[in-house]
C-alpha cells in the first residue's frame, strides 16, 4: 500500500515537472552544448539558411488558341553556396488538361505532373515550360491555375550537421593580439562595476535604515534605475552626455568648469594630472562603468537594507553604553554583520556584470575601448557574421565563468571551515 502511494507520488512529480524541465532544457541547456558544437565549425551567417528549391509559376495564354495555355516555372536554388540533390517537382492540374510537350524528366499521370530534376548546383536557375490543352475544348481559367502551387523537394547538406571540425576559431580568439585587451576591459568593467554598486549599496542602505520623513518613497525611488527598461535609460544617458548639445556638457560649459566639451562616451583615453603625475584614464569605459553602477546599485541596496533591518537593536544600544562613536559602530557592528550578504552580492553581480551585453551595446556599441567579451560575441557573430567565432567567444565566457565560480566556492568553502 505504502509502496504504491510512493510510486504515484513519484509519477505525479514527474508529470508536474516535466513540461518546465523540457522547455528549460531545450532552450537553455541544449544551446550551451550546441555552442560547443558550432564553435568547432567554420560557419557563417549566410550558411545557416537551409537551401531550398524554389519555383515561380507564371501562366501565359497563347494568342488565338483559347484552349491552350503555356505555363512557365522559374526554377532556382535559393542558396548561393550549396547544391541541392535529388530535386523533385510536383504540380496538379484540372481534370480536362492534356499535356502537349512532356519533358523527358517528367511524367504526367492523373492530372499530376511529376518531375525529377536530379542535382541543382548553387545559384542554379532554369526556365521550365509546359504547354497544356483542354481535351473538351472549354476555355481556361487562368486565375484558378495560379492558385495551385507546385511542390518542390530536395536534399541538401545542413552545414551545422556535418562532421567537419576545425580549431581555427579558438586559435583566432585566443591568439589574436586583441584577446588580452578584451579580457582586461571585461575585467575592469566587471570588477569596478561590482565593487562600485556594492559600495553605493552600502551607503544608501545605511542611509535609508535611519528614520526620516519620506523614507518609503525614498526606497522606491532608489529602485527606479533597476526596474526601468535599459533601452530608455541608455538613450537618456546618451543624450545627457552627448558632446554637442548634451545637458551635462552644456551645463559644465555654462558654469565655465570646462572650456571644450568632453565626449564622455566616444573618447578612449583622457589625460589626467594628479600631483604632477600623468594618468591615462579610460574615459568611455569609466562612463560605461558609472552607468552600470547607477543601474545596479539598487540590488545591492535592497539586499543590504534587508540585512541591516535584521541586526538586533541591542548591539547598538550596548555600543552606546560603551560610548562608541558612530564610525566605530559602523565598522565594528554593521560591517561584520553584512559581510555574508556582501560576499553573495559580489558573486551574483560579478557573474551578471561579466555577461552584461545590453548596457554597453546601447551606450557605445563597443566602440572607444569598451569592447567586452559579450559585445565581442555579438560583433563576431552578427557584425562580421562569423557564427563559429561568436560561438567560440561564448565558450570562452562560459569557461571563464566556471573557473570564477570554482575559485569563489573554494575560497568561500575555506572561509566557512575556518569559522
Amino acid at each position, binding site marked *: 500500500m505504502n509502496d504504491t502511494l510512493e510510486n504515484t507520488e513519484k509519477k505525479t512529480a514527474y508529470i508536474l515537472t516535466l513540461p518546465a524541465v523540457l522547455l528549460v532544457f531545450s532552450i537553455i541547456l541544449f544551446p550551451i552544448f550546441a555552442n560547443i558544437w558550432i564553435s568547432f565549425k567554420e560557419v557563417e551567417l549566410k550558411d545557416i539558411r537551409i537551401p531550398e528549391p524554389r519555383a515561380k509559376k507564371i501562366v501565359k495564354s497563347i494568342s488565338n488558341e483559347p484552349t491552350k495555355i503555356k505555363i512557365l516555372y522559374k526554377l532556382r536554388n535559393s542558396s548561393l553556396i550549396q547544391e541541392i540533390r535529388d530535386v523533385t517537382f510536383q504540380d496538379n492540374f484540372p481534370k480536362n488538361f492534356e499535356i502537349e510537350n512532356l519533358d523527358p524528366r517528367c511524367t504526367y499521370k492523373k492530372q499530376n505532373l511529376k518531375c525529377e530534376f536530379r542535382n541543382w548546383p548553387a545559384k542554379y536557375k532554369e526556365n521550365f515550360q509546359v504547354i497544356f490543352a483542354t481535351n473538351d475544348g472549354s476555355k481556361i481559367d487562368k486565375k484558378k491555375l495560379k492558385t495551385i502551387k507546385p511542390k518542390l523537394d530536395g536534399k541538401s547538406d545542413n552545414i551545422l550537421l556535418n562532421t567537419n571540425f576545425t580549431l581555427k576559431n579558438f586559435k583566432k580568439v585566443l591568439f589574436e593580439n586583441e584577446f588580452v585587451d578584451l579580457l582586461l576591459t571585461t575585467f575592469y568593467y566587471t570588477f569596478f562595476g561590482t565593487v562600485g554598486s556594492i559600495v553605493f549599496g552600502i551607503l544608501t542602505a545605511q542611509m535609508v535604515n535611519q528614520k526620516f520623513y519620506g523614507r518609503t518613497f*525614498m526606497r522606491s525611488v532608489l529602485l527606479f534605475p533597476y*526596474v526601468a527598461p535599459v533601452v530608455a535609460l541608455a538613450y537618456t544617458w546618451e543624450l545627457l552626455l552627448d558632446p554637442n548639445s548634451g545637458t551635462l556638457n552644456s551645463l559644465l560649459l555654462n558654469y565655465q568648469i570646462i572650456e571644450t566639451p568632453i565626449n564622455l562616451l566616444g573618447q578612449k583615453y583622457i589625460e589626467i594630472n594628479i600631483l604632477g603625475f600623468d594618468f591615462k584614464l579610460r574615459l568611455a569605459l569609466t562612463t560605461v562603468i558609472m552607468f552600470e553602477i547607477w543601474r545596479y546599485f539598487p540590488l545591492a541596496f535592497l539586499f543590504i537594507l534587508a540585512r541591516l533591518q535584521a541586526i538586533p537593536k541591542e548591539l547598538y544600544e550596548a555600543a552606546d553604553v560603551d560610548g562608541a562613536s558612530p564610525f566605530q559602530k559602523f565598522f565594528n557592528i554593521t560591517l561584520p554583520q553584512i559581510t555574508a550578504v556582501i560576499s553573495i552580492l559580489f558573486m551574483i553581480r560579478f557573474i551578471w556584470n561579466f555577461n552584461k551585453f545590453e548596457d554597453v551595446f546601447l551606450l557605445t556599441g563597443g566602440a572607444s575601448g569598451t569592447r567586452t567579451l559579450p559585445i565581442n560575441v555579438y560583433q563576431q*557573430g552578427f557584425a562580421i557574421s562569423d557564427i563559429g567565432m561568436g560561438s567560440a567567444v561564448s565558450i570562452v*565566457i562560459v569557461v571563464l565563468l566556471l573557473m570564477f565560480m570554482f575559485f569563489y566556492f573554494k575560497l568561500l568553502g575555506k572561509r566557512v571551515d575556518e569559522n
Partner: protein
Amino acid sequence: MRTKNTILFSLISTFFLIFLISIWKILATLQGLSINSFNIEIIFIFGFLISLAHLVIGDRIKSIYKSIIFSSIFVFCDGYLIQKLPIWYNVGVFLILYFFTNKISKYTFIGLKEEHSTQVILFDFLTLFGILFFSFVILFPFYMMLVTSFKTQIALLVNPLDFSINFGQDIKDLFKSYFVIFKSYKFGKYIVISTIVSVGTVIITLLFAIPAAYAVARLNFFGKTFLSTSILIIYMFPAIVLVIPLYTIFSQLGLRNSIEGLLIVYTATTLPVAIYMLQGYFKSIPKELEEAAILDKLSWFGIITKIIIPLSIPAISSVALYVFMIAWNEFLFSLMFLDNPNSFTLSRAIQYLSGDAETPRQYLMAGSVVVTLPVLFIFVYFEKYLVSGLTAGSVKG
C-alpha cells in the same frame, strides 16, 4: 575643543548649504535662467556666518523667527548680488534656507561639547546629503527624459539648457512627439505586441511553474535536489551565451520574427526564477490542508487549483508582475530575433528608431517615456509585493 567643534560644525553645515543651493541653481539653469556661476565663495561666507550666528544667538530668539530672519537676509543679499532673476527662484532660495536653518536648529553649544559630537554631526549631514544627492542623481535622468519629450528640436538647438515647458500652448503642440511616434512610427502596434508578449509570457510561465514548484516543494522524487540546484545554476547562466545557437536554430525553424519564438525564449528564461520564488512560498503553506484534501480524494490537480493557488495569490501575483517586467524590459533577444519592423517589441522599436541618426531626440525620449511609464507605474503601485520578491533573490539584470 569647543572652538574646534564649532568651526567643524559650521564648515560641515556650510558645505551642505552649498550643495543645496547648487542643486537649485542647476535646476533653475535648466529652466532657461542664465546663471553662469555658483558663487560658491559668497555662499560659503554666508553659510558660515549663519551657522555661527545660530550658535551664538542660541535660544534667545524663537527658532522659527530666527529661521525666517536668516533666510530673508540671505535671499536679500543673494538676490541683490545676482540680479534679474524671477521671483520663483528667490522663493526657492528662501525655502532652502528655511529648511537649512531648521535642520541646524537642533545643534547648540552644549550639544557640541558632548563626546563624538562632530562625528554625530558628520553622520547626520552625510545622511541628509546622501538622501538629496541620490534622489537627484536617480531622478534627474528620468526628469530629463520626460521634459525633453515635450520640447522641439529647434527650441533645443537655440538653447540646449532651456527645458521649461510652455503649458500655455495647444495640447497638440505640447504632445506633438507622442502624436508623431504613434502615427508615423506605429508605436501603438508595438505597445500591443509588447503587451501580448509580456502577458503571454506571464500566463505560460505560471502554467508551467506552478505545478513544477508544487512538486519541488511538496513531493518526494528521485532527482529533486538535482532539479532544485540546477534551477539556481541555470538562473545564473548568461543569456548572451544562448544567443548564437538559438539564432541558428530559430532561423532554420522559421521562428525568427515571430511572437511565438519570443514567447518560447522568454518563458524558458523566466521559468527558473518563477519556480524558485514559488516553491519557497508553497513550502510555507501548512501541510495539514493538503492531507485533509487527500483524505477527501482530491487529485493533485484538485489540490493545486483548490488549495495551493487560492492560498498563494500574493506570491503568484508578485511572480506574475516580475515576469511581466522582465519580459517587457527584455532587449537582447528582441534585438537578435526581430528584424522586421512589423514584429518589433517596444524596446526593439526604440533601438531601431535611434539607429537613424536623423531621428529627433524628442521622439526618442517620447518613446522612452512610453516604454518606461507602465513599468514604473506597476512598480510603485505594487511596491510592497515586489520588494519582498526582489530580496527573495530574483530578477536577473
